[in-house]
Structures are given as C-alpha cells and as structure tokens.
C-alpha cells in the first residue's frame, strides 16, 4: 500500500520505544533515534555514514555485518538475543531485531535495526520465584517449587512443552509465564482450545484457509499458526484434539510448515508449542485416542502441576492472597477468616483446585459484612460435601439433594437449610443466595434484600437477571 504522505524518518524513529536506527544497503547509518544515541553513546551526527556494526557493537552473530547481509538477501527479519558494548564500557543485554525496508517500487532500500534493552526482563528472570506472586502463581510447597524451578529451563529452549494437571491447577498461567520469560516474549502468545471446536472449524482455526476453500470462506484467513509466527502457540486441552488433526499437527511440528485449508502453497512458520491437557495422555495413547508419535513429539519437556490437595501448605497462602485481592477490589475491610471458617476451608479438598478456591473466597468476600469471614459466609455446598463424605464414611445413605428451582415464590419452604449449588459460577451462587434468603423470609423481598445487604431494587434487578421473576 502506498502511503498518501512521506513521513519524516527521524520523527518516525523517535516514535519507536526502543533504540532504533536505519541503515542503507551498504549497512551505513542513515538515521537513529535518541534512545539509540543514549545506548551507544554516539550522537547521530558523528556516526552518520558509519557502518552500523562499528557503532552498535553487538555479539549477535553480526561480525562483518553477516546478520545484516542475511536479512538483506532473504528479506526475512531476524531477531537475536545478545548484548551491545557501548562507549561507556558497559555491556547492555539486547533483543537485536533487523528487518528489511523496501521503497515504494518494492526494491530493497535498507534495514531497520532495533536493539531493545532487555536488562529488566533478564533481571526478572534471574530473581525468579518471588516475582511469580505478582502474576498469581503462588506456591511454597516442594511440589510447586519443583515446577517453578522448571520455568527458567523451559523458557530458555524452544522445545515443546507438555503441561498436565487437573483443571484449575494453573496450566494456562505456567504456559504464559514460560512464553513471557522466553526470547519469544515480544512475539504473540496465542491460545487455542482444542476441545472447544469441531474438527472442520479447528483445522481452519489452526491452519487458516484460503478464499473459496469452503462455503462461506469469503476471504483468506491466516490461522493461529501463522499468527503465532515467532511466538508461542498454546494448545490447551490437546487431549481432545480430533485424530485427523493430530496428524496435521505432527507434520507441522516436524517440518515447520503447513498448507492452509484449500491452499496449495505451504507456509513456513517458526512457532513454539506448549500443549496442556487434564487427561492422562499415556492412557489415551494406550486406548488409541491419541497418537503415540504426537505424544512423544509434545512430551519433550513434561511438567505435571500438582492438585491443591497435594500442596496443603499452599492453601493458607492462596486464601490470604485471594482474600486481599477481592477485598481490595470490592473496597471492603475484611481482615481474615475466623478459626472455624479457616478450619472448614483447610478440611475441604478443592476438586476444582485454585480456581474453585478463588471462587469460594470471592463469594465469601461478597457476602461478608463483618471484619472476619465466618463459617456461615462460606458457600454451603462446602459443608454439604463434607457432610456427605462424613455420612458415606458412616455408611449412612445420603439424602437426595434438592435442586435449584426456577422460581422463588415458594411459601412451603419453612426450613432454613441452604440448598446444594450445582455450578460454581458466581451467577449460580448469587441466585442460590437469593433463593435461600427469600425462602427464609417467606418470599418477603424487603427482608430478603436486607438480609443480603442489598437494596430492594437491586434484589429485584438481580432476580430478574437470573430468571427468578417472570
């Protein structure tokens, strides 16, 4: 596309938030921004016309301008991690990116060089464990420490990673951190849920399609593999991937190229794969529902995330963290849990792991009106399950649990016993709270609203939203 104007190159360079310079085809400096002047220690006027590598002295395989020549010949941008030694005798770690510039006629006219200072990123990677807290990855148990120890190792390689663990154990977070700490951090991190889409759609989603490939394909679509080029593709629920697609995925992993749906030309990509599943993949391989060769291809670096019940020492830290998070978010002044509430939480086995724990704390913080969360402010299903377990242990048959009813205008509910909540979403929990409160006060909305700490209008609105009113 031809621009309707000719931008001032110097001003354009100033708009880049990293040290940047433009070289001509002989690799001499044409222009550089102030950040590049500051990094190298040379003012633009003094080094204009000098070979770029003599000024930006890097160790990125650019001796005698080899990297520049490669980019100019192939036209493909290169991005290398290394350092720059400036005239103040300081080594600065950089992500050195060289890309080719073309003029309006399409001819090669020079190179754009960006030397992003990655000192801060490297510092973060070195300081390691403590920093995971800021991204809600909390764990002091030995099993989690082992996982944390693996993160830097996974980050410094391009090998495929397989993350396994129950739902809610933090597979997505680990994948994101590995990407953020890797040299691919500045390129896209794309997540694809392999279990969410049917075969045809998933194939088109992953590999893209060309215009006219199938009915409704009115334009070319690049696909997630293409979009994640030079970055990371996170395939979650890979165990649910249909068999025919597993073959195609395997071939992409082997050849690093693929053909879009309905296309003829293969596209070359440089993508790092992180796969995750909550299924035991080995078992799936034995049952012939997952390809063995793909399993071994993905299982280069395997990390198993322990369920919360195996990291009991972390529960208190997680409770404190989420309590603080939700208290701050909701502007409340809750300081903690009563001993009885804490004991109940510690006794609970959290089948939904950290996600469930977070939801429980969010629920409790929402309905707590005091300084400390007590037992009554915890979701009732917590105790029902404990009760059921106890009953099962005592070999007494469990009483059938009353389901949620669509309307609340039941005056026959004289009992105060809270009802089992089947879903763990906040909407379900809130709905059940309303049902319980209305039942308790015989359908009196004013009293129910008061009990919930809401206004009458708010209760009416929420009842309407959750289908409790016709």
């Amino acid at each position, binding site marked *: 596309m031809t621009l309707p104007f000719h931008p001032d190159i110097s001003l354009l360079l100033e708009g880049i938030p990293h040290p940047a310079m433009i070289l001509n085809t*002989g690799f*001499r400096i044409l222009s550089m921004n102030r950040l590049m002047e500051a990094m190298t*220690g*040379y003012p633009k006027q*003094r*080094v*204009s*016309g*000098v*070979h770029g*590598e*003599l*000024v930006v*002295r890097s*160790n990125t395989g650019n*001796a*005698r*301008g080899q990297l520049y020549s490669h980019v100019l010949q192939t036209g493909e941008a290169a991005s290398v991690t290394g350092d720059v*030694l*400036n*005239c103040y*005798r*300081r*080594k600065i770690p950089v992500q050195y990116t060289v890309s080719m510039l073309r003029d309006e006629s399409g001819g090669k006219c020079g190179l754009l060089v960006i030397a992003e200072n990655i000192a801060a990123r490297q510092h973060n990677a070195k300081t390691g464990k403590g920093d995971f807290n800021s991204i809600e990855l909390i764990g002091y148990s030995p099993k989690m420490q082992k996982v944390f120890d693996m993160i830097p190792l996974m980050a410094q390689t391009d090998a495929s990673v397989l993350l396994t663990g129950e739902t809610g154990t933090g597979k997505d977070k680990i994948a994101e951190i590995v990407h953020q700490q890797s040299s691919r951090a500045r390129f896209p991190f794309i997540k694809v849920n392999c279990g969410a889409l049917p075969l045809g759609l998933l194939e088109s989603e992953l590999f893209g399609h060309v215009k006219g490939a199938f009915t409704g394909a009115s334009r070319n679509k690049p696909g997630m593999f293409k979009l994640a080029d030079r970055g990371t593709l996170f395939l979650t629920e890979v165990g649910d991937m249909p068999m025919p697609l597993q073959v195609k995925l395997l071939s992409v992993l082997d050849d690093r190229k693929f053909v879009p749906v309905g296309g003829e030309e293969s596209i070359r990509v440089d993508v790092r794969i992180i796969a995750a599943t909550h299924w035991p993949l080995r078992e799936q391989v034995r049952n012939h529902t997952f390809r063995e060769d793909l399993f071994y291809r993905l299982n280069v670096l395997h990390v198993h995330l322990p369920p919360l019940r195996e990291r009991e020492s972390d529960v208190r830290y997680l409770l404190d963290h989420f309590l603080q998070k939700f208290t701050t978010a909701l502007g409340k002044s809750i300081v903690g849990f009563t001993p009885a509430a804490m004991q109940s939480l510690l006794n609970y086995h959290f089948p939904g792991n950290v996600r469930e724990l977070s939801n429980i704390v969010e629920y409790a913080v929402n309905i707590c009106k005091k300084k400390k969360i007590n037992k009554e402010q915890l979701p009732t299903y917590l105790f029902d399950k404990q009760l059921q377990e106890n009953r099962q242990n005592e070999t007494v048959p469990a009483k059938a649990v009353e389901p949620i009813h669509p309307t609340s205008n039941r005056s026959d509910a004289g009992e105060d016993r809270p009802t089992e909540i089947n879903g763990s979403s906040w909407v379900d929990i809130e709905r059940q709270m309303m049902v319980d409160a209305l039942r308790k006060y015989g359908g009196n909305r004013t009293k129910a609203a008061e009990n919930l700490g809401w206004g009458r209008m708010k209760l009416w609105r929420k009842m309407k939203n959750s289908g409790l009113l016709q």
Partner: protein
Amino acid sequence: MRKLLIPIQGDFVAPRFDLATEILIVRFENQKMVGEPKTIIMERPSEENLCQMAVEENITDMVCGGIEELHYNFLVWKKVTVLDAVIGDWRTVLDKTLAGTLSQGEILIHSDDEQPML
C-alpha cells in the same frame, strides 16, 4: 621503546575487544615504527587471553573499539595506556597513534568516505 596493540577486524579496529581474533602489535619510538608490525591470529576470541597477552608482551599502548570497564581498568592498572571506543581504519589509527594525535572515542570515518571492508 613503546609497544602498541590493536585488536583488528579486516581493515578496521575491531568493534569489540572481547570478540577480536586478529591482533596487530607494533613497536615504535619517537613517532616512528620500529621493525615490521606483527599480526597474531587467536584461536578463539577471549578478553582474558588478550589481557594476558598484553601483559606478557609488555604492551605500553592499546587502541581498541568497545571494551568492558573491568578489562579497561585491569589494563590501566597494568600501566597500559588505553584509547578505547575508537572507530576507524586501523592504518589511519596507527598513523595517528604514532603521531600522538589520536584521542579516546575518536571516529576516523566520514560519511562521504569510501569505506574499506569491515
């Protein structure tokens, strides 16, 4: 008599001291070269080996491109006069060093110059 060491790369002073593999050693006295310049090709780049070489060869002067503070301080401590961050064709640099007119951080290339090979 003084002894000058210049890490070089092609026709230029090597951009980085720690990555240089070609070393030029020149003996000079009263602004004139004594004998022929000596070129050493190192097996692999190493700033530690270069510093050691400077000490063993009794180098009194050194001209280089980028050098780390640590190695600069070491050489200065070993009484080597170091002119660093110099950019230019090593022959011109050598002439200016002999004449005593080279300064630290000098750039001896101009935009309209026909530049030799890096």
